[in-house]
């Protein structure tokens, strides 16, 4: 599904290399987790993959189903099936949540040469998906993320994911700022989307999210590289011993 080869990325504005040759392959149907200390480049990886400005790719490639996405505009990547659940979802005053979602769903359908979804079908679908995430009608009407609590914002990200049905989902610290109940809801939302035709890359600091979203592979990222990969046990090791042992081991 996603193949990242020797990806090196710096900042556009200053001489600073953040990713120093990332190699990562996520197969269809798999859930991969990336853990790592602050500043290791986890969030940068998610932003570079989704096409945010301000980064310069100095080498390497990122293929989504064999297609290089790094040359694509963010909206083209989305239409190709990539989705990033933001660590800090953006508030957009004046744009209703429902309008936003409908515009996004139909823009992607249009880009893929599909017909627009009718208002009735859209309404039916969003009500069903929103209900599972305990998002009420009031939240759907409000401007995008404006006045939402931390938990509401994250649930809203998962709702977008559920509506857009991407193939490759990247979750950037979706657990940050969530209490246990909210985390369960979010995890349930993600698990409901697990499918043989879909893959996940879950970026997190803590093992606890991975109790709810069981990963197939866990990667440890440090100083712009994947330094170790393993099974779910690797996350437990981090939880118990911190990163220092692992980093010492690979140094």
């Amino acid at each position, binding site marked *: 599904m996603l193949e990242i080869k020797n990806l090196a990325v710096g900042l556009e504005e200053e001489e600073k290399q953040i990713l120093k040759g990332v190699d990562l392959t996520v197969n269809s149907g798999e859930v991969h987790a990336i853990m790592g200390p602050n500043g290791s480049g986890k969030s940068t990886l998610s932003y570079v993959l*989704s*096409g*945010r*400005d301000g980064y310069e790719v100095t080498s390497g490639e990122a293929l989504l189903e064999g297609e290089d996405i790094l040359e694509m*505009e*963010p*909206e083209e*990547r*989305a*239409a190709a099936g990539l*989705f*990033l659940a*933001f660590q800090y*979802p*953006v*508030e*957009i*005053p*004046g*744009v209703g949540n429902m*309008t*936003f979602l409908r*515009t*996004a*769903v139909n*823009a*992607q359908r249009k*880009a893929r040469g599909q017909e627009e979804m009718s208002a009735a079908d859209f309404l039916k679908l969003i009500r069903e998906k929103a209900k599972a995430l305990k998002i009420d009608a009031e939240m759907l009407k409000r*401007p*995008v993320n404006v006045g939402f609590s931390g938990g509401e914002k994250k649930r809203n990200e998962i709702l*977008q994911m559920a509506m*857009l049905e991407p193939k490759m989902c990247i979750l950037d610290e979706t657990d940050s700022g969530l209490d246990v109940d909210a985390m369960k809801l979010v995890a349930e939302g993600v698990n409901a989307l697990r499918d043989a035709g879909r893959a996940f890359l879950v970026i997190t600091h803590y093992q606890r999210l991975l109790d709810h979203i069981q990963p197939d592979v866990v990667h440890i990222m440090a100083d712009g590289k994947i330094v170790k990969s393993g099974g779910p046990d690797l996350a437990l090791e981090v939880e118990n011993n911190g990163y220092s042992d692992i980093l010492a081991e690979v140094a």
Partner: protein
Amino acid sequence: MAEPAHQGAQAVLTMPDGQGAWASEARAAARARFDAMGAPTKRDEYWKFTDSAPLSYDTTPHAALFRPGEIPLFTNLDRLKVVFRDGQFDAEASDDLAMEHVEIHMLAEAAKADLHWAKDIYGVLEARGQDPVSRPFAALNTAYAKNGVVIRVTGKAPKPISLIYAHDDEDSDAILHHVVKVESGASLTILENGPAAARFNKCMEIDVADGGEFHHIRAQGRDHERRAVTHMFARLGTESVYKSFTMTVNGVLTRNECVIELTGDDAVAHVAGAALGDGKTGDFHHDDTVFITHDALNCESRQVFKKVLRNGAVGVFQGKILVKEGAQKTDGYQISQSLLLDDDSQFLAKPELEIYADDVACSHGSTSGAIDEEALFYLRSRGVPEAEAQDLLVLAFLAEALDEVEDETISEELLGRLQDWLARHR
């Protein structure tokens, strides 16, 4: 200020013939007012952001006709049409002027008759609005207006009066002066649209009696060469309501002045505007100048002005809330904002509060900003193409102003025009 007042004005402008006594007196008084104040100059504080020269009658105006071939706004509304073509009443294109609860006269005729309610307003509200800031073009208008509608409403008007300004003559100068009297408990909506003339000077005086309601929706544009100066003078009685919204797109020079006096307790005045200019398709200069005076208890006023500017477009906002002594419990709000889509565009704002009462809530804010890049990326990351995402954010920026339009059908139609404009100017 004592410059020779429009040397050319005397030559170009003539007072209409055959006026009755009251009209002649009102016009002569206005002419005297104008002579005393003189034409605006660049030294005038009130005109420091806007060059009045293109509005002066020393030059012959010229504006190419603009025929976009789209269905004009409000076409599908149930309305009573009054058409002015280059400032002349076009009876043939207009509807029958009879309507339940509403008297509609043409100024040219009314000026000959003894309409006491009209003579108590014509030039009277304009003259009141000359203090403390002079508005020379309004005085000039009262003196020389060729025509206009004189309306009295005694109940709930069954449909809006739609003033349509057609432009057929590339060199036309139009001066129109409307008078509106909303009697106690009555209500009326006035719509205005159309390019009007090569140069347009329009004045509307509105007297809203106790419990009356006046609603006003105006669309200016899409003609590019419009040079227009407009004034709205309103006096509001107890528990009366005044709500006005103006959408402006394009236009080399537009100055919209609005002067409102809240003279009765519990009156409400909302004035809002959304203006969009793109220097790439022609010079754009848009000036909203608002002066609201609170002179009664517990009144509410709200000014919401938003401008979207690109490619060297210029937006101006001068807005004042004056709370007179004793106007306690005043609730005044003023916001003026611009969205600058590039580094070449300019927003000049002068928000003012002057308060002589001690128990009031007044707030004002003025901002200039660019498109929120974070929001833009967020939308794009969900698959919304960049241009569409930007339009969505522009409309979100304008929403607070457009929200002032209460009628949903009209609001939807205006929104559609804004979307079309944005799509053409990507």
